[in-house]
């Protein structure tokens, strides 16, 4: 096991414990005297402290230790946790997280924060007087002291038992197998007496990179000469120095050895550097790892075994029945079907293995909402549902920022101040809801508040001011949504520093589009606002419909297709100012040809010639003419963004069954392109007044 592995285990565990702490703190805010919650916090801090010591995170260990002390005191007092302490713990949690993230390589800012927090921790402790059994000035001030004391205890036991303490310095010849020789010396010495301490540590000595010399503190019977002779007798030992030392002086003398020997020996001074490097490497790899429930993996392995069996059956059949009867061919087809089924299941399970619950992310937001509310003098309760909803780890990572922005929006713009709420007949405490659930192959996330809702008059005023809306023109719900998600559009009357600087919802929309998701906004004045985000379950695989336009074959994500229809000539009509419209079951749908959007020469330019794909994106629909529907395919998306940048209308590429590279269409941007196309190049935004945004 490398150091970096241990560090990774520690980082993961520490993060789990920090989450438990945060969750506990948020609950303690509601019920500050809950002893069980305080126990949970105590245990989490305790585990962090213990792990930090092992993984070499001294600052984390020290901070956790101080927090643990405060918790122990609270436990003893039994009076519950105060607001001051709660806030202290919240900031301590943040700092611990930062220290872990920076791998303790705390820059000046962190160091300052650390010093500040430690000071308030100490003040906190001092207030309760030295009589408190936990405020032991000796205790835990220096994590190294634990070890020191341990060594001292060992020395004392040994010398009390009549042993002599020797300080032994050994030099090895350069270019020998140092690790082996050092091992032999240690073995021989251990047979002679108890080795109390070695420097550099045995771990370093085991690496060939270590220096040529090392020192030991040995407790043994008399017979100095004997030990010297034994060690000197080991081949490639260049020299042995051996002194009997007073037990009380031993550690001090040895420490001098540690100080002198370490920096002067080339190999040993190099040792701390790789350790630091592995720490850094550890943090990089951590982002890419998840802990997977073994049950999930077992299922995958089961399916792989089934797959192999089914495949060999297919192979056998194929060989046996070459050119045989129709019956044989039918059973071959059956066998293939079986293989298909298993592969699909396998793929679902593998996908499932990279799914993690959204709970931890929601917890972070609960915390964020709380902090913001405090800052803004608002009161709120965060109601979370669907914590256990699982989604692809990559999606969670990428959705966190947009979600955060929306929550800021809800707390800052949505919720009113307590006095305003009371005046409106609402309870003073606002409610922020966070929920996640699965629906129709998508993950749906809702972020809502019960605040003031969107002020349509303010939206109108702003839109008119910016020339996006004709004065007095009707403002449809859809148009409002379009305006709010438009770059640079903000209705916040005061710039509060938290949100409302005009960059926001458009960035959110873009991020969500990148994930092939969509966002919708529902709002009622005085009752609140709700954002509904729809995301695909995974970024990697989609069910697609393979279609053809002229020579081109393209994939449309299945989730965007509501139906296929064929129309008779004349069913698509030209409407002044709105382009071409199809009337479908009394609903008017914008019509265009995919060939027009993409500039391809098609077989058919008339709607009645080919097939119309009815696309749906949120509440918007569009009828898209294609030449032919080829069939359904499950495809793995290869991003082209790294190579070509984001191209409007294209989500990525894939390789379909026959081996051809095929483009996957991006539905949301396709709607935008279609609108621009029907607008004949006029900027889409200018048309909002007509309600056709």
């Amino acid at each position: 096991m490398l150091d970096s592995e241990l560090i990774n285990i520690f980082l993961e565990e520490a993060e789990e414990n920090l989450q438990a702490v945060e969750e506990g703190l948020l609950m303690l805010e509601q019920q500050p005297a809950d002893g069980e919650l305080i126990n949970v916090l105590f245990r989490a801090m305790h585990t962090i402290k213990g792990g930090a010591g092992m993984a070499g995170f001294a600052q984390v260990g020290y901070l956790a230790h101080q927090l643990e002390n405060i918790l122990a005191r609270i436990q003893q007092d039994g009076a519950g946790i105060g607001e001051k302490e709660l806030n202290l713990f919240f900031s301590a949690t943040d700092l611990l997280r930062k220290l872990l993230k920076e791998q303790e390589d705390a820059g000046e800012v962190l160091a300052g924060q650390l010093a500040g927090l430690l000071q308030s921790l100490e003040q906190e402790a001092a207030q309760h007087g030295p009589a408190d059994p936990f405020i032991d000035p000796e205790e835990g001030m220096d994590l190294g002291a634990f070890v020191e004391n341990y060594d001292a205890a060992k020395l004392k036991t040994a010398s009390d038992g009549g042993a002599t303490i020797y300080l032994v310095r050994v030099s090895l010849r350069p270019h020998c197998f140092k690790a082996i020789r050092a091992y032999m010396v240690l073995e021989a010495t251990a047979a002679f007496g108890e080795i109390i301490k070695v420097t550099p540590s045995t771990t370093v000595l085991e690496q060939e990179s270590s220096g040529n010399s090392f020192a030991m503190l040995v407790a043994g019977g008399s017979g100095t000469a004997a030990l010297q002779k034994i060690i000197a007798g080991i081949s490639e030992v260049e020299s042995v120095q051996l002194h009997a030392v007073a037990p009380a002086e031993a550690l001090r003398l040895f420490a001098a050895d540690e100080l002198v020997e370490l920096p002067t020996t080339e190999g040993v001074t190099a040792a701390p550097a790789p350790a630091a490097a592995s720490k850094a490497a550890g943090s990089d790899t951590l982002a890419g790892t998840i802990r997977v429930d073994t049950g999930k993996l077992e299922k995958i392995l089961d399916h792989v075994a089934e797959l192999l069996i089914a495949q060999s059956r297919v192979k056998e059949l194929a060989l046996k029945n070459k050119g045989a009867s129709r019956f044989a061919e039918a059973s071959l087809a059956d066998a293939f079907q079986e293989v298909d089924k298993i592969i699909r299941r396998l793929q679902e399970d593998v996908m499932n293995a990279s799914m993690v619950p959204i709970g931890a992310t929601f917890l972070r937001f609960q915390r964020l909402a709380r902090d913001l509310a405090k800052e803004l003098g608002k009161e709120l309760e965060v109601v979370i549902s669907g914590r256990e909803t699982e989604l692809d780890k990559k999606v969670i990572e990428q959705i966190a920022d947009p979600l955060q922005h929306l929550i800021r929006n809800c707390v800052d713009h949505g919720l009113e101040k307590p006095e305003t709420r009371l005046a409106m007949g609402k309870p003073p405490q606002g409610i922020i809801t966070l929920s996640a659930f699965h629906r129709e192959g998508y993950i749906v996330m809702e972020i809502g508040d019960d605040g003031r809702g969107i002020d349509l008059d303010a939206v109108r005023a702003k839109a008119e001011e910016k020339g996006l809306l004709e004065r007095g023109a009707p403002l449809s719900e859809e148009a409002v949504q379009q305006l709010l998600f438009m770059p640079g559009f903000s209705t916040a009357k005061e710039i509060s520093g938290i949100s409302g600087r005009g960059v926001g919802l458009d960035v959110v929309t873009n991020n969500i589009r990148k994930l092939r998701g969509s966002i919708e906004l529902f709002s009622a004045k005085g009752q609140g606002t709700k954002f509904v985000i729809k995301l695909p379950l995974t970024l990697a695989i989609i069910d697609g419909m393979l279609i053809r336009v002229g020579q081109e074959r393209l994939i449309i994500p299945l989730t965007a297709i509501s139906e296929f229809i064929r129309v008779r000539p004349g069913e698509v009509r030209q409407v002044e100012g709105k382009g071409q419209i199809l009337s479908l079951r009394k609903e008017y749908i914008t019509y265009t040809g995919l060939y027009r959007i993409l500039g391809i020469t098609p077989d058919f330019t008339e709607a009645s010639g080919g097939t119309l794909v009815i696309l749906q994106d949120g509440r918007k629909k569009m009828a898209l003419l294609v030449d032919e529907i080829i069939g359904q395919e499950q495809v793995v998306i290869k991003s082209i963004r790294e190579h070509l940048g984001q191209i409007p209308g294209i989500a990525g590429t894939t390789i379909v069954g026959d081996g051809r590279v095929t483009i996957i269409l991006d539905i949301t941007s396709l709607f935008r392109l279609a609108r621009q196309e029907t607008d004949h190049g006029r900027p889409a935004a200018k048309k909002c007044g007509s309600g056709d945004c």
Partner: protein
Amino acid sequence: MKKLIFIVDDSRTIRTSLQYMLERGGYEVVAAENGLEAIQQLEKLTEATRLPSMIIADINMPLMDGIVLIKNIREQAVFNAIPILALTTEHREQKKLAGKAAGASGWLMKPVKAEQLIAVVEKFVK
């Protein structure tokens, strides 16, 4: 056959590092996350007539803490001869005495270094 050391600690970090150190020191290791799990594991080991040569138990653990665990172990004659090390982060005499009263053979302070661990384990196991 390698000697078996039984570790009980609720922290993954501690379990992993102790296990690594002991395995490098030539021991076989079995680990449990808390007192309850430890009792179950010990029962299994007894059935398999593979008793550990030593038990290293953390004091502060959920479900069943180290003190209760040590008491429970000591109540059974079959485990009576097994040395138990109490693992702690606090060097308060009170805790150590509690461990001793429960039947611990010694204590070990976290963070533990490999050479200390092996030295202490050897002292008891040899």
